[in-house]
C-alpha cells in the first residue's frame, strides 16, 4: 500500500472493545511490561510492533489470560472487555478465551482431521445443535479463512498433512469457528512464505468486518498494510499508540521514529 495514502485511510469511529489501564507484567522478578494503557477499538485491526523482547507478545497474551498457564507470571492493572474486568475473580478464563480467540506464531494444528480441527471449538463450547449445523460452521469458517477450496475434498485428512501456509489458515479457521469477538494473532505470518503471507493479510483485512483483530508483527510493512491503529513497544514500555498513518508518517516519539526508520531494533 502506498505510504502516501496511509493518512487518508478510512477509519471506523469504532467503540472501545478492550481497555487496558496501568498493566504491569512480571515474570518472577523480571518486570516485563510497565504501565501499558491501550484502547483497542471494535472492528479494527490493531498492530503491535517493536523489537524482540519488548513485551508485545506478553501484552497480547494478557488479553485472553494465556499468561495464566505460565506459573511465574503475574499481571497487575486492569483490562476490560466490553467494560468487564477480565481479571476479575468471577471471570472464567475458559469462557473469556472463547470470546477472545488466538492464533499463534507457529501453525499448531491438532493431530486430528481438518474437519475435527475446525469443529474443536464449537464442540467444546456446544455452539451447534446438530451435525448439519456443525458442518455449516466448519464450511463457513474454512471459507472465511480462504482454505475451503483447497481442502473441501479431503476434510477428513489429517490437518498436520497440509503445507505451512495452509496449516496457518487452518488455525485461523479454527479460531474463528468459535465466533470470537476479538482475534489475537501472535506473528501469524512469521513461518509463512510471501504468497501465504499475502493470503493471510488479505484474510485479516476481511476479518475486520466482524471482529476486532490484534496482530503482533515484526514486519513494519505488514503493520502498515493491514492495521488501522499501531502501538509501538520498546523495552517493556508502550512508547506510542495511535492511528497507523500517523505513527508511520509523523511519529511523536523519537524512539518510534528511530525504530521505523531502522535505527534501533
Amino acid at each position, binding site marked *: 500500500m502506498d505510504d502516501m495514502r496511509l493518512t487518508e485511510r478510512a477509519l471506523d469511529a469504532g467503540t472501545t472493545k478492550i481497555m487496558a489501564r496501568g498493566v504491569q507484567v512480571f515474570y518472577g522478578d523480571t518486570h516485563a511490561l510497565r504501565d501499558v494503557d491501550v484502547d483497542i477499538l471494535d472492528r479494527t485491526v490493531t498492530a503491535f510492533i517493536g523489537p524482540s523482547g519488548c513485551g508485545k507478545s506478553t501484552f497480547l497474551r494478557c488479553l485472553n489470560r494465556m499468561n495464566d498457564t505460565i506459573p511465574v507470571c503475574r499481571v497487575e492493572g486492569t483490562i476490560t472487555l466490553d467494560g468487564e474486568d477480565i481479571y476479575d475473580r468471577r471471570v472464567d478464563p475458559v469462557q473469556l478465551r472463547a470470546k477472545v480467540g488466538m492464533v499463534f506464531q507457529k501453525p499448531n494444528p491438532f493431530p*486430528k482431521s481438518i474437519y475435527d480441527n475446525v469443529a474443536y*471449538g464449537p464442540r*467444546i463450547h456446544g455452539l451447534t445443535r446438530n451435525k448439519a449445523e456443525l458442518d455449516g460452521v466448519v464450511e463457513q469458517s474454512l471459507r472465511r479463512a480462504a482454505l475451503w477450496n483447497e481442502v473441501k475434498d479431503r476434510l477428513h485428512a489429517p490437518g498436520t498433512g497440509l503445507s505451512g501456509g495452509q496449516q496457518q489458515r487452518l488455525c485461523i479457521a*479454527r479460531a474463528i469457528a468459535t465466533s470470537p469477538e476479538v482475534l489475537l494473532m501472535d506473528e501469524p505470518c512469521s513461518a509463512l512464505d510471501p504468497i501465504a503471507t499475502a493470503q493471510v493479510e488479505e484474510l485479516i483485512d476481511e476479518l475486520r468486518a466482524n471482529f476486532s483483530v490484534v496482530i503482533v508483527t515484526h514486519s513494519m510493512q505488514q503493520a502498515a498494510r493491514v492495521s488501522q491503529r499501531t502501538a509501538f513497544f520498546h523495552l517493556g514500555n508502550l512508547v506510542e499508540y495511535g492511528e497507523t498513518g500517523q505513527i508511520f508518517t509523523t511519529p511523536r516519539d523519537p524512539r518510534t521514529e528511530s525504530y521505523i526508520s531502522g535505527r534501533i531494533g
Partner: protein
Amino acid sequence: MTVSVLLFIILAIGATGYALGVRRARAAAGGDTRKLHSLTGYHGQSVLLFSAVPALVLLGLWLVLQPLYLDHRAGAMIAVADIPEGGSLDLVLADVRRVAEGLDLLVASGGMTEDDLAATGAADSDLKARLGGVGVALAGEVGEGVFEAARDYRHATHGLSLAMAAATIAAALAGLVFALRRIGTDYRARNVSEGFVLLLFIASSLVAVLTTVGIVASLLIESIHFFRLYPARDFLFSLTWNPQFRGGSDLGIWPLLWGTLYVSFVALLFAVPVGLLSAIYLSEYASRRLRALAKPAIEVLAGIPTIVYGLFALVTVGPFLRDWFAQPLGLGSGSSSVMTAGLVMGIMLIPFVSSLSDDIINAVPQSLRDGSYGLGATQSETVRQVILPAALPGIVGAVLLAASRAIGETMIVVMGAGAAAKLDLNPFEAMTTITVKIVSQLTGDTEFASPETLVAFALGMALFVFTLGLNIVALYVVRKYREQYE
C-alpha cells in the same frame, strides 16, 4: 599360552600400531600434518583396526572351532566297545576331557613327568587314585580307549594352543605391516577407518540378530522332538493339562494359555488406568516439585524384585481378597487366585505404564496445549482431545511393553495364583500360566527325553510366537498413528 595373555598381546600390538601409524603419517607429511588427507589420528586408528580386529576375529573363531575339532578327533578314537551300556558318546567324551584335564594337572603338579605319561597305560592301577589326588574324580575305571583318547586329546590341545597363539599374533603383525605400508599423504585413512567402523557396527547388530535366531532354532528343534513324541493336535486343541510322569499325560495348552491371558488381563486392567491417569496427573497437573518427588517414588516400584511382589501376594493380598471378597461372595475359599496374582502384577506394571506415558505426554509440544487453551478448552478437555490422541502411539507402546512383561511374569503367578492348570471364568479360582509350567516341567528329577519335559520347549515356543504377534500388532498400531500425527 592362555587366552587372556594372547588378548593382551594382540591389544598391545594394536596400540603400538596406533602409535606407529601416527608417527609414520607425520613422517610422510614431512612434519606438516596439513598435507595429509586425513588427520594423523585416523591413520593410527586404521593401523589399530587392521592389526587388532582380524586377529581377534581369528581368535574367536579358533576358540569356537577347536573343541569341535578335538571332540571329533577323540570320538574317532573311541571304539563302540568303549561306550558303556546305556551311556552315550557324549558322556564318554566328557570323560575323555576330564581325564585329559587331570593328566594336565598331574604333570603341572609334578606328580608325573611327560616321559612317565608316555609310558603309562590305563592298566596302571593307581591312575584313578592319582587323578583323584589332583581333584579329578571319576565314576568308573578308566578304559584303555578313553585313556588313549585323553592322552591324544591333551597332546592335540597343546599343539593347537600353540598354533593358535602363533596364528593370531602373526595375523596381528601382518595386519600391522599391511596397514603401515599403506600410509602416505594421499592415503584416505579417514574413509578406511569409517568403513571399518561401519563393519564393526554391522557385526555387532548381527550378534543380536543371530542370537535371536539361535534361541528360536533351539526352541524349534526341541519342540520338534516334542511333537514327534506327542501329537501336535492334542497339544494345540486338548482342554486338559495333566502331566503324568509315568506316561499317558494330557498336555493341552489351553488351560495354561487361558491362565496366562486371564492373569495378564486382570493385571493390565488394573495397571493401565492407574498408570495412565497418574502419568496425566504428573505431567499436566502436578507442580514441578511434586513431580520431582512422585515420579522417582513410583519408579521405585519397578525396582522391587518380583519375588518380593510374590511374597506380598502370598501373605497380604491373597488372604485379604479371600476374607473380604471371595468368601463373602461365595466365589472360593483359597487365597491363591487369578485376582491376587493379577492385582499384584498390576502394581508391578504401574511404573512401566506411568513412567513411559509421562515422558511421552511431556514430549507433546506446548504449542498444541496453547492452541487448545487459546480456543477456550479446559485442561481436561485439552488432555482428552488433544494430548492423549497426540501421545497415543507412545502410550500404546507403553501398554504393550507392560503386556509382554505380564505375559512373561512367573514368580508372582507361582506365589499368587498357584500351580493348578484350570479353565475357569471365576477370578477367585487358582490358575496357572505358561511360564510357571515351563519351570515346573523342567525342574525336578525327570528324564529329559520324555514328552513331559520336552513340552516345556513347545510351551516356550508358543509363548514366543504369542509375544511376537503382540509386538507386531504394537508396531503396526504405532506406525499407523505416527503417519497420521507427524
